């Protein structure tokens, strides 16, 4: 690509340069050669000068010499200019010098000629005088009229005349000599002039030839340049085309690659999302699968602990309870970690006593600390507000993880955790949580790793002390979720100090949630409830059953959503516990059906969602579906009671309310049919309703007629079957009287009553059907 661009640039530049040269050369060639013009001008001037002298030689008029003198005076300048124009050409310069000399010689000759012409004028005058003298001598030879005159003048005149004639003859001689000289001069001048002309012509020819040569050379050079330029242009075009192709190719390749990358990226993204979803699903499934038996273990252990047992069994059960709770905590850790990683964990905002949180943490690790011969203590600075607003569960989780680690890694030492108020700015409080121990400590080189996921200082740590390696990672993520900071200072075999800065708001004591435990008794209003529990896990249902039986609550159960809905069709319940995840129809959809299709309102029957997964993130969805509260699995009796109280306190209801019977749906008692259901199902499609009514009319008519025939022929089983078959459609279109008659037919056959009764019922059914059919047909006509 770079090579192609360089080639294109080079050829482009060369083409441009050559073209520029050709253009400038053409521009130069278009200008006439100044030297040639100068030579021609000089030549013409010389011609003019010669002509001027020739004219003068004829006219002897000095005016005719004016051009001559003008030319002579300027000729030097023109020759000098020619010299300067030829200064770069030594041959031409030499020629110019020769011309200059010839011109000088010519001018000398012309001047001599002029001089001779001037002399000729005097001689001419003298000649005229001689002619005149001749004529006067003739007159003197004529006979004198006057004798005196003739005597006295004749001798004197004769003398003068002879002398003058003699002089004249001399002058004539001299004149002829001059003429000869002039002629000679003229001929010499002509020779010189010819010579000069020839020189001029030579020079012109030479210059012209030279110019022609130069022009030819230039033309040749231009041709070569043009040829080169053509090559460059061709190269430029080819390289341009190549470059364009290359660029196109690169672009196409880039686009293709980009597309491939995009596809790969999208695929990776989809894959990653799928993986994330799978992971999430896996986590949800795993938590569900693990929590469910843990719930059962923990719940049933708790139930057993209520029984009068011997000390040994009680201790064993407590260990089971503690272990299952621990297992539950590990599952919670894993789930929390997954949620923190996906950014799906949200902090609660409730009012709570900070001292209570610290006390709970202390109580939880008191015994393990004693087992390690470690002194566990905690403190709260006096300036810390008693009630805070925030998430006490997560604060407890932070402290539990930190204190748990300290207690775990400290033997025969001290563990102290404290809360100090660093900043109390109106309502916002910055707390400093510190956990200090004198335990095994952490190697400085490993300090940076301890907050990483699934990390413990050494692999052997896991084997020796247990744990998932998630604790500190979860703590760090929780602290970050609080917009706080965490820091750890530790020295091997000396101890560890972990400090956290975390922000909370000042709480209100009046708004602190009351603990149910203190008043743990089953209120009468709870005992009177009739509850349906829907859960696909048998032991969960059994756990509910155990608790509720002890609480003296009327308890019913269903193993899936479909079954629950079937039960709810015919029975009324005060409260419904609905598992979120079930085969067939899940809790969400079942609740939606209860609220939207069965029209059982929240005040009639609140629905409590039970789930092993934390549905907090999707709670809005569950709430929108018509659920009223959430009970996480595993749950304690207290949690169960609190949840029940929360919904029955929120919703006033009457336990005496009976479910709406299907038969009561009919809005108008006078009407034999009710198409409300059919229209509801059709979604407003009248043609569908029409089609359904036609099929009802046809099939029911057929059935009723078959019943008549079967009754007449005594085939009672067929009658029962036909009646049974016709019931649902009749019920669906609200033909309840017909339904009753068909049901009676069925019952009568089962009870083996009189055939006459059956015959009567069959006839009544036929009459009723005719009425129903008329109404149905009316409806069909209305739709048409």
């Amino acid at each position, binding site marked *: 690509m770079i090579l192609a661009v360089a080639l294109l640039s080079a050829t482009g530049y060369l083409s441009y340069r050559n073209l520029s040269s050709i253009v400038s050369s053409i521009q130069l060639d278009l200008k006439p050669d100044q030297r040639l013009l100068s030579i021609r001008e000089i030549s013409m001037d010389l011609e003019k000068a010669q002509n001027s002298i020739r004219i003068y030689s004829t006219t002897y008029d000095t005016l005719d010499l004016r051009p001559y003198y003008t030319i002579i005076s300027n000729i030097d300048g023109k020759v000098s200019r020619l010299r300067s124009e030829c200064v770069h050409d030594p041959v031409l310069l030499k020629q110019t010098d020769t011309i200059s000399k010839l011109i000088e010689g010519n001018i000398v000759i012309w001047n001599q000629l002029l001089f001779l012409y001037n002399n000729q004028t005097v001689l001419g005058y003298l000649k005229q005088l001689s002619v005149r003298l001749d004529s006067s001598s003739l007159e003197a030879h004529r006979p004198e009229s006057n004798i005196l005159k003739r005597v006295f003048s004749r001798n004197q005149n004769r003398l003068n005349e002879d002398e003058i004639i003699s002089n004249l003859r001399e002058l004539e001689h001299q004149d002829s000599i001059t003429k000869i000289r002039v002629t000679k001069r003229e001929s010499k001048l002509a020779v010189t002039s010819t010579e000069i002309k020839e020189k001029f012509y030579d020079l012109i020819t030479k210059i012209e030839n030279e110019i022609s040569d130069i022009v030819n050379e230039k033309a040749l050079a231009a041709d070569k340049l043009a040829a080169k330029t053509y090559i460059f242009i061709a190269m430029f075009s080819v390289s341009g085309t190549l470059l364009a192709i290359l660029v196109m190719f690169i672009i196409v390749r880039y686009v293709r690659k980009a597309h491939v990358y995009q596809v790969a990226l999208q695929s990776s993204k989809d894959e990653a999302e799928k993986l994330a979803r799978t992971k999430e699903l896996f986590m949800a499934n795993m938590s569900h699968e693990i929590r469910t038996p843990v719930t059962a273990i923990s719940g049933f252990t708790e139930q057993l602990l209520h029984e009068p047992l011997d000390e040994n069994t009680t201790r064993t059960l407590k260990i089971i309870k503690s272990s299952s709770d621990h297992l539950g905590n590990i599952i919670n850790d894993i789930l929390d970690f997954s949620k923190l990683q996906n950014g799906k964990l949200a902090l609660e905002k409730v009012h709570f006593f900070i001292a209570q949180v610290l006390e709970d943490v202390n109580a939880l690790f008191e015994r393990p600390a004693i087992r390690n011969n470690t002194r566990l203590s905690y403190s709260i600075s006096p300036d810390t507000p008693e009630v805070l607003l925030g998430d006490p569960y997560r604060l407890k989780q932070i402290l539990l993880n930190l204190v748990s680690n300290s207690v775990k890694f400290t033997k025969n030492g001290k563990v102290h955790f404290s809360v100090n108020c660093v900043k109390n700015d109106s309502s916002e409080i910055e707390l400093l949580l510190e956990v200090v121990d004198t335990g095994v400590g952490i190697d400085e080189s490993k300090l940076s790793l301890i907050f990483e996921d699934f990390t413990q200082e050494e692999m052997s740590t896991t084997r020796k002390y247990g744990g998932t390696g998630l604790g500190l990672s979860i703590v760090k993520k929780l602290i970050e979720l609080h917009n706080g900071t965490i820091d750890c200072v530790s020295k091997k075999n000396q101890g560890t100090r972990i400090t956290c800065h975390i922000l909370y708001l000042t709480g209100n004591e009046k708004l602190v949630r009351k603990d149910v435990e203190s008043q743990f008794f089953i209120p009468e209003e709870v005992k009177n409830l009739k509850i349906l529990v829907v859960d696909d896990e048998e032991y969960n249902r059994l756990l509910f059953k155990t608790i509720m039986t002890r609480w003296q609550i009327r308890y019913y159960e269903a193993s*899936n*959503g*479909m*079954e629950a*809905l*079937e039960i709810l*069709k015919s029975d009324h319940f005060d409260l419904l516990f609905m598992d979120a995840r079930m085969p*067939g*129809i*899940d809790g969400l*959809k079942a609740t939606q*059906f209860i609220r939207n*299709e*069965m029209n059982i309102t929240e005040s009639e029957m609140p629905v409590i969602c039970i789930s092993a997964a934390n549905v907090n993130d999707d709670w809005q969805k569950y709430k929108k579906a018509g659920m009223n509260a959430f009970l996480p699995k595993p749950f304690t009796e207290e949690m169960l009671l609190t949840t029940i109280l929360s919904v029955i306190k929120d919703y006033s209801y009457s336990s005496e309310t009976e479910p709406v019977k*299907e038969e009561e*749906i009919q809005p108008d008692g006078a009407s034999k049919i009710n198409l409300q*259901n059919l229209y509801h*199902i*059709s*979604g407003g499609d009248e043609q*569908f309703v029409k*089609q*359904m009514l036609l*099929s*009802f009319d*046809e*099939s*029911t008519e057929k059935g009723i007629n078959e019943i008549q025939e079967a009754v007449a022929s005594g085939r009672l089983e067929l009658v029962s*079957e036909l009646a*049974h*078959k*016709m*019931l*649902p*459609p009749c*019920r*669906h279109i609200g033909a309840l009287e017909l339904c009753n008659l068909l049901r009676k037919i069925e019952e009568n056959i089962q009870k083996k009553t009189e055939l006459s009764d059956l015959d009567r019922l069959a006839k009544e059914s036929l009459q009723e059907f005719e009425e129903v059919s008329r109404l149905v047909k009316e409806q069909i006509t209305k739709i048409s």
Partner: protein
Amino acid sequence: MKQKINILVVEDNIYYNNLIFNALQQSTHFVQKKVKYQLILQSFVDYSDFMQKIESREFADNDVVAFVDYNLGNGISGAQMINSLKKENSNTLAVLLSQSRTIEERSIKNNYDFYVIKDTFAPALCRLYLDQFIENKFL
């Protein structure tokens, strides 16, 4: 190749057959995904047609969701149909449509997955079941 799912309605009463068929057709997921996943909805009024299809192994290779009436007339039980279907294709989920709980209890040993009492809510319940099935399967 698209995954094909056969959704079958087997009900000899034409009215109720149409009712269930129409309700299933209105399932949100069915409407949205029927082309993408090749969801084929078929209804049978005559059980012999249905049996013929089972025998010709038409439903052998794909997932099947069947809504079958308990009483198909002429003493033919829907539970038997479900058994035949499940024998042919183990990936069959069957919903038995029954008149009363008595019948449902009588056929408890049959190989169906859920039952729906044929009352006012039955079409909506079938639609809900199909919605959930498609959601669990594809979404």
